[in-house]
């Protein structure tokens, strides 16, 4: 079981980000360190609730304090942007930088967000007090009302609400589940593993055609693994491909776990893969489309995403492997012209953008891969292999590549 080795991160982990001037009674450092580990083992859920609740209290206190003393209330929100994402080369993960953005009440562009931040802060406090959880959509509704005396709503749509909740995560230094919020579940799993989900034993070998729906929260206090008999995890991009593999019982023939993330995998899926990799040493092998989006899905699984850089340590899998589809496969598998999907301007721009990310830049293999795709001038989906034979992908393509260990790392 690969346990996390270091807790001292060079880059800033999410912490208390609001007004630096406000006296900090809360020991932020301890919180940070605790968070970097699968904290549930060390801290009870009740402890976390108290901590989160206090963090919200401190946030509101600082606003009150500034307001009453005639200073401008502000909240410092760590910046979740590419600029503030640091590539930790030695650890192979993306981390959040130390930049913070001041969110001010008396700023035309920020006043509304400021209000929403406090509104959701209040909502989360209520959730914690009542010990209930809500979905992101539920939170949107919980904070939604019309501002008195106007026709303006507190939130126009869920996107607005979701962004504020992510801001709160980094501002409070609490993870989503610590805020008692979960996302819509997405992603499926089958294979040689048994999981205990909130005490229910689920044998993933007996999931029929549907598979086990991976929950949005995959923390150890919710999900525990039992009888991990698989040798590796094959993660595919989408449900259609996953169905192909499940129908062909690929996981049985190759003794693996089969997961899919419906495109960009949600946090739950990533956390699950991370834990399988760290706790059980299972290699994660990805089968994704040969296009910039497939490449970026791999990148997110491997080193974390920009918007969730603060969670990379518990989500990223630096040794994840990219099996295909590779740009060379058009020739290597002797595919017909019909499978070519021409790269459009957006694809090309995105590919170049990805190539310029520091975690791709300087990686010879990946540079060649993307350059070859650009030279080809087309992209390919995993499904393109179906043109060879319905089960070509499960019976020939993947087994051959696995045997040859022909993947990109």
């Amino acid at each position, binding site marked *: 079981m690969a346990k996390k080795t270091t807790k001292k991160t060079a880059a800033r982990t999410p912490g208390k980000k609001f007004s630096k001037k406000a006296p900090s009674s809360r020991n932020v450092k301890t919180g940070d360190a605790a968070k970097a580990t699968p904290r549930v083992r060390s801290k009870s859920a009740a402890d976390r609730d108290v901590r989160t609740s206090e963090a*919200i*209290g401190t*946030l*509101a*206190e600082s*606003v*009150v304090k500034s*307001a*009453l003393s*005639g200073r*401008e*209330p502000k909240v410092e929100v760590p910046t979740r942007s590419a600029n503030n994402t640091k590539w930790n080369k030695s650890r192979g993960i993306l981390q959040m930088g130390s930049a913070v953005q001041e969110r001010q*009440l*008396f700023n*035309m562009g920020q*006043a*509304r967000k*400021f*209000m929403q931040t*406090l*509104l959701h*802060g*209040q909502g989360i*406090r*209520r959730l914690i007090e009542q010990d209930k959880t809500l979905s992101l959509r539920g939170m949107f509704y919980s904070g939604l009302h019309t*501002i*008195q*005396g*106007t026709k*303006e709503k*507190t939130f126009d749509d869920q996107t607005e609400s979701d962004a504020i909740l992510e801001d709160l995560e980094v501002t409070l230094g609490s993870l989503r589940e610590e805020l008692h919020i979960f996302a819509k579940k997405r992603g499926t799993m089958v294979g040689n593993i048994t999981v205990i989900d909130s005490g229910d034993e689920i044998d993933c070998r007996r999931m029929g055609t549907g598979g086990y729906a991976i929950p949005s929260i995959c923390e150890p206090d919710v999900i525990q693994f039992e009888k991990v008999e698989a040798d590796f995890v094959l993660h595919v991009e989408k449900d259609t491909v996953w169905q192909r593999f499940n129908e062909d019982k690929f996981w049985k023939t190759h003794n693996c776990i089969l997961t899919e993330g419906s495109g960009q995998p949600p946090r739950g899926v990533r956390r699950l893969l991370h834990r399988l990799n760290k706790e059980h040493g299972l290699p994660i092998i990805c089968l994704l489309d040969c296009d910039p989006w497939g490449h970026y899905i791999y990148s997110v699984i491997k080193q974390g995403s920009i918007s969730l850089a603060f969670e990379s340590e518990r989500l990223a899998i630096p040794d994840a492997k990219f099996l295909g589809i590779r740009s060379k496969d058009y020739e290597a598998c002797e595919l017909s012209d019909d499978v070519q999907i021409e790269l459009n301007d957006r694809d090309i721009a995105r590919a170049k953008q990805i190539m310029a990310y520091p975690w791709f830049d300087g990686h010879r293999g990946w540079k060649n891969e993307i350059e070859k795709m650009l030279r080809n001038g087309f992209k390919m989906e995993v499904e393109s292999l179906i043109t060879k034979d319905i089960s070509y992908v499960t019976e020939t393509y993947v087994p051959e590549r696995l045997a040859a260990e022909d993947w990109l790392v």
Partner: protein
Amino acid sequence: MAKTTERRKQTAETMAGRQREISVSEFFAKNRHLLGFDNPRKALLTTVKEAVDNALDACEEAGILPDITVELEELAPPLSASKSGRYRVTITDNGPGIVRRQVENIFGKLLYGSKFHRLKMSRGQQGIGISAAGMYGLMTTGKPMVITTRPNKKKPAHHIELAMDTSKNQPEVTVDIETDDFPETTTGTGTRVAIELEARYQRGKASVDTYLEQTAIANPHASITFIPPRRAGSPAEDPASEMLAAIEDAAEGPPDLSEHTIVDGRILMPRTIDELPPETQEIKPHPYGVELGNFLRMLKSTDEKQLTGFFKNEFCRVTPPIVKRITDAASTKGSTFSGQTWLKSLSASDSERLYRAMQEVKLLNPPTDCLSPIGVRQMLAGLMKGVRGEFYAASTRPAAVYRGNPFQIEAAIAFGGDLPGDQPARVLRFANRVPLLYQQSACSAFKSVTETAWKNYGLSQPRGGAPVGPLVIAIHMASVWVPFTSESKEAIADYDEIRKEMKLALQECGRKLGIYLRRRQRMRRDAEKRDVFERYIGEIAKACHAITGTDAAELYESLMRQAQRRTEIADAVLDEDGKIVGYQNERNGLEKDEGVVILDRSATPSASTAAAAPQPAADGADEPVETPVVTERPKKKILKKVKKKVRKKAGAAKGDDSLFGA
């Protein structure tokens, strides 16, 4: 060749047989367009204009506050929209009247008058106008001009009917009786002129209505009554005239500037200032404005014997020391001059040398007491009466000189309010208080408008055009001699000096407008900002209360105070340069400027415009009517506050008696 020689049969002798003097009247009878009688519609306007100008001039010279009535009667309606009908124009004033023996000369002779030979600011200049109108009437209808004048209130009025012999430029009196049929005037004296002519009455742009309205703007001391024609026969009985009315309505130009009191078919444009413009002085020519030929003529006709006396009495601004400078400069080795040089000893070349020296020597500008500008306050009063804007600014330039003639430019602008925002600005041009309605693009005043960079003041302006926006621009030129481009006095000639002054005056108004607009924008922006902050403060206070238990009301109050402090520009008062000079509702910056009036019309529902229009009181005092401020959302205290402040300013201007007369 042979043919050509044959054709050239004329000899000097035979040609001489046909060469004869052309009378001015004959010339103008053939060239009526030169005098503004090009078409029936314009003929009507020109006739009214000449008569009103004369009446105002006469009243002012006699020190009488003018009371003028203009009546149009439609004797025969036009048969179609483009044809002319027959009208009678009757203009009655309360002026001093005209002594019997001068009536023929004044009304029956072209180029006869008191105004041509002197340098004094007056409306009429050449002595053509009214006689030309009479001549036009005679030519088109055969009816003589009817003049009723009463120079002595104790004696009956003269009733004179006057025709004109165009070939001789001589008046012919057809009827000359004494009559008691003369309307009561305030002075007991007065003159009434009635001219029957082929014309067409149509409202709208460049109409008699517009002319009278603009005259009222430029002459706030005059009371003008206009009786527009009643249609012959009621519309129900006369489908033709009904049709005609419909056509005419459709052809109507932009809506009239103002809404005046209409009583019993009479449009009343009351006096707003009970004070005559200061009497203007007649001045002697300034040396710079005299041409050599004139100078020689003056040398011949003067009664003076020596140079000092000649210069001193025939010119202005030439003092004995200056005479010495002129004579010194003109002196050469061969001949020397001094103030004592006898005029009769001067040769032609001597005179020319003196003339050149006179042009070279540095002189003071001509005196300016010969000018009577309308005045900033009066311009504002006039504009506010006629134009429903929200911001008014006016400026008067110091007197300047072109070709030795002193002149003075005034400009005023009205902005916003009910003015249409998507059209080019309207330019009202005035020369010696007379509105100019035709040939706008040929006029120096209009050119100065197009040449002013209005973009600097926050307005859009197409290249080479007038600015676009809810703007009315008024430009007045006061001068002892207004250089018109033609005898019909429609456009001011384009002298660089004049245009420069006009531009400077416009720029001054524009700067004030720019400040106002920028401030308005900033205030709006800050008010909007405050509005946004306020909206969220309530939510924030509630959320903070729920989390920390802090008193929500206290939190709300302190955040509100902060919001107000941070958006204080919404209450700000700016100075001329747009700097903030205070936050109180004090009269400051723009508002201190007597050339600026700001009214708050922003909240006036346009439907109530007519009802809220300034209704002049009977005593002639006009006040900007303060319109009720209606705020849609009673929550918005701030916006209300801004408005209240602006209103207060408008109120301050309103309370200023001198602006509107006693």
